[in-house]
């Protein structure tokens, strides 16, 4: 009940973030129900159905990542000295976060179910009744247990992930009394994932190039819905590349910060670079994920964008979900970093630091990251698409 009471009093922006989580959950739930509808409509094509279900894992992962990021920035679940003093420690707070995540994701799943039934034509009385009966496999009864299981996937995964993520947060005990300026010593030092990330990205690209040499004729890598055989090699290559980019993200961000503050920096460059170095872990991981997703999208557009019917509505929904969730996660992480530095920014303003200097530092950070990650994304995308288009 405390979770609901805290929700009622929160700022509209926080509620908007939760609504976005609900929307993401609704999208993923809808995709999962669509695969179920397809499977029950086409019992002969079991392989195609499984393939579709597996493709749904990508938006699912993106939605869960977003839900965790929102739970981390939620002011209701932030460690608070007042609540800590009355016995609401990290454990209870992670329970609170789990409850509010569960509420928003379950809401999304319900909306997905209603929308799905409505578009199938099972619920009538509203516009667009049964407009997509064919696509969603109407006419065959929907297995209830399977539908509920699929709909429960997003809430359960998000709740578990956010509870675990908040449990792992350092205990609040020191923070109410710790003087500011005494930052967490554990966060300093370079992130160590960069070599691994580079190696994995290179390996992924190599695997993909090797696998796509294979059978001549036909698309070497079909999107879901085209019932060719999917070469596992290409998929494994793309996955490896994505994991590699996500691992290299923090290290690259740290390097960006290091370069920014090098060679006699002024106040703006000094602040921008050092903050980037300290926030490398928080910002770098989602940034790497966004980079991987964008490169995937660019490669896919290069591969399939020229065809007569590039992609279907469900593929578009899935792609939009993945893109939206990863971008929103990145923005939420940036917000989390900003919240964590609010007291320092206050102290700087009290000293008379012009607000434009702080904004300038933020702009320099964003510009540096863009300058490094945009070419990287483009290069990886071109390299990923090269063997497939050349074949």
């Amino acid at each position, binding site marked *: 009940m405390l979770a609901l009471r805290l929700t009622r009093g929160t700022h509209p922006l926080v509620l908007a973030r939760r609504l976005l989580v609900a929307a993401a959950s609704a999208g993923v739930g809808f995709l999962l129900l669509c695969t179920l509808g397809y499977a029950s409509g086409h019992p002969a094509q079991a392989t195609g159905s499984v393939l579709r279900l597996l493709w749904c894992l990508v938006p699912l992962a993106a939605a869960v990542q977003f839900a965790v990021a929102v739970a981390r920035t939620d002011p209701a679940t932030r460690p608070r000295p007042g609540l800590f003093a009355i016995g609401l420690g990290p454990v209870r707070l992670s329970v609170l976060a789990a409850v509010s995540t569960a509420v928003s994701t379950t809401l999304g799943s319900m909306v997905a179910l209603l929308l799905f039934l409505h578009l199938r034509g099972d619920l009538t009385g509203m516009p667009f009744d049964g407009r997509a009966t064919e696509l969603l496999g109407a006419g065959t009864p929907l297995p209830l247990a399977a539908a509920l299981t699929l709909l429960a996937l997003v809430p359960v995964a998000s709740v578990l992930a956010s509870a675990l993520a908040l449990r792992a947060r350092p205990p609040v005990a020191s923070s109410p009394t710790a*003087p500011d*300026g*005494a*930052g967490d010593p554990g966060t300093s030092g370079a992130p160590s994932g960069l070599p691994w990330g580079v190696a994995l990205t290179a390996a992924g690209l190599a695997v993909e190039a090797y696998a796509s040499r294979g059978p001549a004729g036909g698309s070497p890598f079909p999107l879901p819905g085209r019932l060719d055989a999917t070469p596992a090699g290409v998929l494994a290559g793309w996955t490896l590349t994505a994991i590699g980019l996500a691992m290299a993200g923090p290290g690259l961000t740290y390097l960006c910060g290091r370069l920014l503050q090098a060679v006699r920096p*002024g106040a703006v460059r000094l*602040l921008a670079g*050092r903050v980037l170095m*300290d926030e490398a872990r928080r910002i770098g991981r989602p940034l790497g994920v966004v980079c991987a997703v964008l490169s995937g999208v660019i490669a896919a557009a290069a591969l399939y964008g020229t065809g007569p019917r590039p992609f279907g509505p469900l593929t578009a929904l899935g792609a939009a979900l993945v893109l939206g969730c990863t971008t929103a996660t990145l923005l939420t992480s940036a917000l989390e970093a900003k919240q964590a530095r609010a007291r320092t920014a206050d102290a700087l303003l009290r*000293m008379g*630091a012009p607000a434009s200097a702080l904004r300038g530092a933020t702009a320099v950070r964003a510009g540096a990251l863009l300058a490094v990650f945009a070419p990287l994304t483009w290069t990886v995308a071109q390299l990923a698409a090269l063997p497939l288009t050349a074949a």
Partner: protein
Amino acid sequence: MVAPPDNDVIWARSLHHSHNGSPGLGGVSVGVRDGEILAVTGPRGSGKTTLLHCLSGQLVPQQGEVWYNSVPLHTMGPRLREQLRRDRFAWIAPEPQLVPELTTWENAALPLLLRGTSHRAAKKAALEWLERLDIAALAKKRPHALLQAQRQRVSVARALTASPSVIFADEPTAALHRADRTQLLRTLTTAARSHDITVVLATHDVEVAALADRAVALLDGRRVSTVTLPAVSDTEGRSACSLSV
């Protein structure tokens, strides 16, 4: 509008301020002379911090006037007040309020860097002051590796490095033990006197106030001549509090 006296560097007249309705200041007038160390004394909650915020241009009082060197602060826009804080004032808070990402000397040099001083000159000035405050050996460490007393000395060094005209120190020694407290205050007052810096020092401590040239006592947001609270009776206020709670 009355023109302020010439020898006052900061001059405030009948300041009234309330925080969202909670009373803060109720008509405080105060003049700070050039180069003096003025102690603002009073118990917690008597409006010392609010007064310092008003005098340093961080808050605009709801009524009353604040003048700095015959320039009115209460009519200035936020940008001009910001510039004044950057160029002429320095602030020492009860907590060090250092930037955790920067090393000790960078923290001390930050006001100069914000003014656009060259990197080399800022570093030189910061290291000089760190040396005088006996923390030059820690110049390359981050704040989290320092003791609380050392961090507070860094924040004093940051205030002095900027060579301001007025330093506002709001309970600078509240979180320190007595030995650290004495050393910090002695350094601050000595440096202020030798460099002709005006200091406005808010404190609830009588010993600390004794280091100042002059003291202004506040009680419940008003200026009083002496702070005398009712003596504690033997019954611990039992007779006064007859509410049954």
